C-alpha cells in the first residue's frame, strides 16, 4: 500500500485525483490546490470534499441565510446565536435553554429505522455539546400519501426508529407533526428537534484553544458506517486489499449514547473541558477542523490512535466515518486523568488522539507520516459560496389564479356535516396517537404538556415551576402557493401554539426543506421563504438561533413542496398556569379570538374534499399574532381561560373537535353574525384561537380583549356529548371519536 503523504503529494503534482466522484466541481478542486499550493493528499481531498458539500458548507443557501443575522431583532434573551452547535436562550432564574431542529431526510428514505434513529442521536449530541442536559425531543415528519404502499414501508420504520432510539435515551417525546402529501413520496422529511437545559455558567463552545491542551475522542469506536462516497477514494489510493463499498447510512446504538450523555454531564459538572464538539456529519474531519478553526491555535492529531471497530479502515475512511455516539473534547493536561476516570466509570472508551498546537495548521499523522496539513478555516468555514440563479416559476401565476374560494361548497347542512366528518377522519387531520403512543412522553417526570396539545411543555425547575414550551409547525401547501407568506405562516402558527399553551415565545430554530438548488424555481422558493421568515422574526422579536437546511429533496424534476418547518421556544414562569386544549368544564363559554375571512387557499378542506391546491394562502398579520399571543398569555396567567386551541388547518371545526375529544365534553356552537356556517367552521384565517372562559371570568376577559383591540366573539358553550352547530347539524362525540381515531391505525397498523 502507498500512503498518500503530504510529501508524496508535493512530489507528484500531476497524479490524477477522483475529485469529481467525491462531488467536487473543477473550480473547487482548483481552489483546494491554490489554498495548499500543491495537490491535496487523499485524506485532504476527502476532508475538503465532505466539508465543502452542500450539507456541511451551506454553499447554496448561505447567501440567503445571512438575513437571519442581518435582520435579527434586538433580543436580550439570546446568549449564543447562529454558528455554534445550537443557539442558547436565557429563560430566567439563571437557566439557559438550547434547542435546534435538524433534518435526516435522505437516510430515512433509504433505511427508515436507522435513518430516523440516528437523526435523533445527532441532534441530541448537538444539544449535549452545548453543555446542556437534553430534556425533550420532537419530530416533525412528512410522508407521501397515507395510503401509498411505500408510506407503509417508510413510516413504521421511521416511527420505530425515533421511538427505539429516543425511548432508550430517556428523553420524553413531547410533540412534533405528521403530515401526508403525495409530494413527499420518495422524499419523506424526517426532522428532529431536541431541547436542553443548563445554567448560564455551564455553556460550552466548540473551540480548541490553549497550546498543549489534549484532544480526546470518546464514545463509540469508529467503524465503516456512513462513509458512502468516500470509498471511491479508498479504492483509488489503496490497492484491492482495502475494503470495498461502505454502507452510506449510519447505525445507531442508543445505549452507548445514553452512557455518553451521563458521562459528558458528569464531565461538565467537574468543569473538565475547554472546548467540545459532537461528531455528526463528516465525523472527525468536521470535529477537528471546526474545533481548530474556532480556536486560537492549530491542532495535531495522531489518527492511528483512533479506536476502531474495523482494523482495515483507511485513514481517509477514519476521517470521514460517521459512526454515531462519538464526541471530541479539548482538555487541559491537568484534567486528562480525571476525564478518563469518569469515562471509565461509565464504560465509555476515551483516547487522547492529539493536542492543540501553537501553529495555525491542522496536521494529521498516520503512523508517524503526515497525511494532512491544512489551514483549518479553509476546511471548516471558508468553503465555496454560490449565488445560484433564481426565478419565480412560470406556473406560479396560474397556481395562484386557481382560486380555492371558488370551489363548490356544501349545498346544505347534511353535506356540510358529511364533509366535516370526512375532514376530521382524513389522514392529516386524524389523531396521530397510533404514532405518538410509540414514544415515551413521561420519562424524566417533568412533562407538563405533550401531543396532541398545542405545544409540548416541560418543567425545568421543581421548586419554582419554571418551564419551557416548544411547538414545531410548517405547511408546505401554503408555502407552495406563496413561499414568502408560507414561511411566515409557519412561524405564526408555531408562535401562536406556544402562546396558546400559556408560554411567552422567545426564539426560533428552523429546518428548511426544499428541492434542488440547481433549479432556479426551487431557489426562488428558498429565497422567498428565507426572506419571509427573516422579516417575520424581526417583527415578532424572535431571533433565529440556528437550524438546518435540507436541499435536493426531489425526484427527477419534481421537487417537494417548499417546506420550512419552524420551531418556536417559549418560557412560562409557572407551569401550573399552562393552558391545555381540552374542553373539560361543562358550561364554560367558547370565544373565537381574531377575524375570520373567506380563506380556503391551501386549506385542509380544499385538499380533503376537492383534492385541490391553488389560490393564495391565508393573509398574515404579524402585529395581530403578537397581540393574540399577549392576550392568550395574560388570560392564562390571570386565570381567565381554562382551555385554548390555536386555529390552523381545518379551522374552527377541527379545533373544536380536538378539544371536545380531549376533554370528553361536547360543544354547542352558534354561527356568528356576518358569517355563513361553512366559512365560520372551515376557513383557515390566521391569527385566531378558540378559548374556554369560565362564566365568572367572562366580563374581565372580554374587557381585556376590548381594551387591547382584539376581536373576541362568543361562539358557544361547552355542553352535552355532541358537537352541535345550531340550526345546522349535530355530531355525537362517539361518531367523531371513531372518525378521528381509526384512520391512522387502519392505514398503518
Amino acid at each position, binding site marked *: 500500500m502507498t500512503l498518500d503523504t503530504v510529501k508524496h503529494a508535493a512530489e507528484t503534482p500531476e497524479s490524477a485525483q477522483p475529485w469529481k466522484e467525491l462531488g467536487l466541481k473543477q473550480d473547487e478542486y482548483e481552489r483546494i490546490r491554490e489554498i495548499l499550493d500543491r495537490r491535496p493528499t487523499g485524506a485532504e481531498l476527502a476532508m475538503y470534499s465532505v466539508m465543502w458539500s452542500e450539507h456541511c458548507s451551506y454553499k447554496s443557501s448561505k447567501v440567503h441565510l445571512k438575513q437571519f443575522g442581518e435582520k435579527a431583532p434586538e433580543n436580550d434573551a439570546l446568549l449564543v446565536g447562529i454558528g455554534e452547535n445550537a443557539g442558547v436562550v436565557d429563560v430566567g432564574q439563571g437557566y439557559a435553554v438550547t434547542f435546534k431542529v435538524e433534518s435526516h431526510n435522505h437516510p430515512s428514505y433509504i433505511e427508515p429505522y436507522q435513518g430516523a434513529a440516528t437523526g435523533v442521536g445527532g441532534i441530541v449530541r448537538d444539544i449535549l455539546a452545548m453543555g446542556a442536559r437534553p430534556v425533550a425531543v420532537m419530530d416533525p415528519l412528512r410522508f407521501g400519501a397515507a395510503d401509498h404502499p411505500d408510506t407503509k414501508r417508510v413510516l413504521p420504520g421511521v416511527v420505530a426508529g425515533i421511538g427505539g432510539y429516543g425511548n*432508550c435515551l430517556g428523553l420524553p417525546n413531547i410533540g412534533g407533526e405528521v403530515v401526508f402529501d403525495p409530494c413527499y413520496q420518495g422524499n419523506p422529511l424526517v426532522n428532529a428537534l431536541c431541547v436542553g437545559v443548563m445554567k448560564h455558567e455551564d455553556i460550552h463552545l466548540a473551540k480548541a484553544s490553549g497550546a498543549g491542551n489534549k484532544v480526546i475522542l470518546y464514545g463509540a469506536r469508529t467503524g465503516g458506517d456512513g462513509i458512502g462516497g468516500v470509498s471511491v477514494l479508498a479504492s483509488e489510493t489503496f490497492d484491492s486489499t482495502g475494503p470495498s463499498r461502505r454502507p452510506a447510512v449510519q447505525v445507531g*446504538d442508543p*445505549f452507548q449514547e445514553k452512557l455518553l450523555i451521563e458521562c459528558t454531564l458528569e464531565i461538565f459538572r467537574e468543569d473538565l473541558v475547554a472546548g467540545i464538539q459532537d461528531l455528526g456529519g463528516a465525523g472527525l474531519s468536521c470535529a477537528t477542523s471546526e474545533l481548530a478553526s474556532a480556536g486560537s491555535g492549530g491542532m495535531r492529531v495522531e489518527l492511528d490512535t483512533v479506536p476502531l471497530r474495523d482494523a482495515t479502515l483507511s485513514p481517509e475512511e477514519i476521517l470521514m466515518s460517521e459512526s454515531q455516539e462519538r464526541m471530541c473534547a479539548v482538555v487541559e493536561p491537568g484534567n486528562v486523568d480525571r476525564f478518563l476516570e469518569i469515562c471509565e466509570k461509565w464504560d465509555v472508551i476515551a483516547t487522547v488522539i492529539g493536542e492543540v498546537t501553537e501553529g495555525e495548521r491542522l496536521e494529521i499523522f498516520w503512523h508517524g507520516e503526515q497525511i494532512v496539513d491544512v489551514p483549518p478555516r479553509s476546511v471548516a468555514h471558508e468553503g465555496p459560496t454560490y449565488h445560484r440563479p433564481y426565478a419565480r416559476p412560470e406556473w406560479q401565476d396560474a397556481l395562484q389564479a386557481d382560486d380555492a374560494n371558488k370551489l363548490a361548497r356544501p349545498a346544505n347542512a347534511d353535506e356540510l356535516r358529511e364533509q366535516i366528518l370526512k375532514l376530521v377522519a382524513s389522514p392529516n387531520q386524524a389523531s396521530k396517537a397510533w404514532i405518538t403512543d410509540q414514544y415515551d412522553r*413521561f420519562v424524566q*417526570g417533568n*412533562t*407538563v404538556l405533550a401531543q396532541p396539545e398545542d405545544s409540548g411543555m416541560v418543567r425545568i425547575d421543581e421548586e419554582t415551576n419554571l418551564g419551557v414550551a416548544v411547538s414545531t409547525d410548517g405547511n408546505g401547501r401554503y408555502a407552495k402557493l406563496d413561499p414568502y407568506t408560507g414561511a411566515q405562516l409557519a412561524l405564526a402558527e408555531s408562535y401562536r401554539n406556544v402562546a396558546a399553551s400559556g408560554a411567552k415565545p422567545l426564539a426560533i430554530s428552523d429546518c428548511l426543506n426544499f428541492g434542488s438548488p440547481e433549479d432556479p424555481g426551487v431557489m426562488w422558493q428558498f429565497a422567498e421563504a428565507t426572506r419571509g421568515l427573516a422579516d417575520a422574526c424581526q417583527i415578532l422579536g424572535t431571533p433565529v438561533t440556528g437550524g438546518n437546511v435540507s436541499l435536493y429533496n426531489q425526484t427527477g424534476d419534481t421537487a417537494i413542496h417548499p417546506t420550512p418547518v419552524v420551531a418556536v421556544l417559549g418560557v412560562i414562569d409557572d*407551569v401550573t398556569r399552562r393552558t391545555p386544549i381540552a374542553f373539560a368544564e361543562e358550561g364554560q363559554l367558547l370565544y373565537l379570538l381574531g377575524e375570520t375571512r373567506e380563506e380556503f387557499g391551501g386549506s385542509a378542506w380544499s385538499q380533503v374534499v376537492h383534492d385541490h391546491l391553488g389560490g393564495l394562502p391565508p393573509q398574515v398579520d404579524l402585529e395581530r399574532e403578537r397581540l393574540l399571543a399577549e392576550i392568550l398569555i395574560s388570560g392564562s396567567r390571570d386565570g381567565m381561560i381554562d382551555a385554548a386551541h390555536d386555529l390552523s388547518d381545518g379551522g374552527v371545526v377541527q379545533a373544536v373537535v380536538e378539544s371536545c375529544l380531549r376533554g370528553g365534553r361536547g360543544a354547542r356552537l352558534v354561527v356568528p353574525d356576518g358569517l355563513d356556517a361553512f366559512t365560520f367552521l372551515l376557513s383557515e384565517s390566521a391569527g385566531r384561537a378558540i378559548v374556554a372562559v369560565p362564566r365568572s371570568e367572562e366580563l374581565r376577559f372580554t374587557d381585556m380583549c376590548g381594551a387591547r383591540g382584539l376581536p373576541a366573539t362568543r361562539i358557544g358553550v361547552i355542553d352535552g356529548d355532541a358537537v352541535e352547530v345550531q340550526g345546522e347539524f349535530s355530531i355525537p362525540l362517539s361518531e367523531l371519536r371513531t372518525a378521528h381515531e381509526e384512520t391512522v391505525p387502519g392505514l398503518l397498523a
Partner: protein
Amino acid sequence: MTARIGVVTFPGTLDDRDTQRAVRVAGAEAVPLWHRDKDLKQVDAVVLPGGFSYGDYLRAGAISRFSPVMETIIEQAKGGMPVLGICNGFQVLTETHLLPGAMLRNNHLHFVCRDQKLRVETDKTAWTSDYSAGQEISVPLKNIDGRYVADERTLDMLEAEGRVAFRYLDVNPNGSLRDIAGISNEAGNVVGLMPHPEHAVEPLVGTGRTDGLGFFTSILKNLLKGANA
C-alpha cells in the same frame, strides 16, 4: 428520622431520577445506588427503576442480574428487605428468579406508551398496603418487552397464593397472560410490575394523577412501623 430507600442506577437506567423524586415526594430519603457497588449504604428498601439496562442487549434484565449491586440485593431480599422492580426492574427481578415468569416482546410488536388502568389485587405486600384490594388506579405504561408469561402451573400458583398484585383493566396493552401487570413473591416483600407508578406522583406532570404515590407511602409506613416496633 425517615426511611432510606435505595434507587439503583445501571448503565442504561432511565427512570432513576424520577424514582428518586417519587421517593422524596412520599417523604422518604432517596439513596442513589450504583451498579458496580456491592454496598447498599444501609438502605431499608430498594427500587429497581425502569430503563434499558445494558441496552437490554441479550435480553431485558439479563446482564444486570449479574452486577455487583444485585448480588447484595438478591441476598437481602431473601432475608426480607423490600424490593420493588418497575418495568426494566421487574424484568431484572424475573431474571434473578426472585419473581417467577418472564417478559416477552409485546404481542403487537410496538413500543406502547399510555395511561393504563390497573386493579390492585392485593394490599398484603410491602408496596401495596396503602391501597385496598380491588382498588382501580391509572398509571403510565411504557415498554416494548412487557408481555408477562409463565407456565400454567406457575400462573395457578400465583393466583392461589394471592400473588397477582396488579391486573390490566379495560385494555391488555401487551398480551400479558391473565392480564397480569405485576406480581409479588411469597413473603410479599418483593414486588414487580410493568407500569410506572413513579410517573404518577404529582398532579402537575405526566397524566395529572397521583395514583402511583401509594407504592411509596406504603413502603414508607411499613418501614417506619417496623422501626418503631
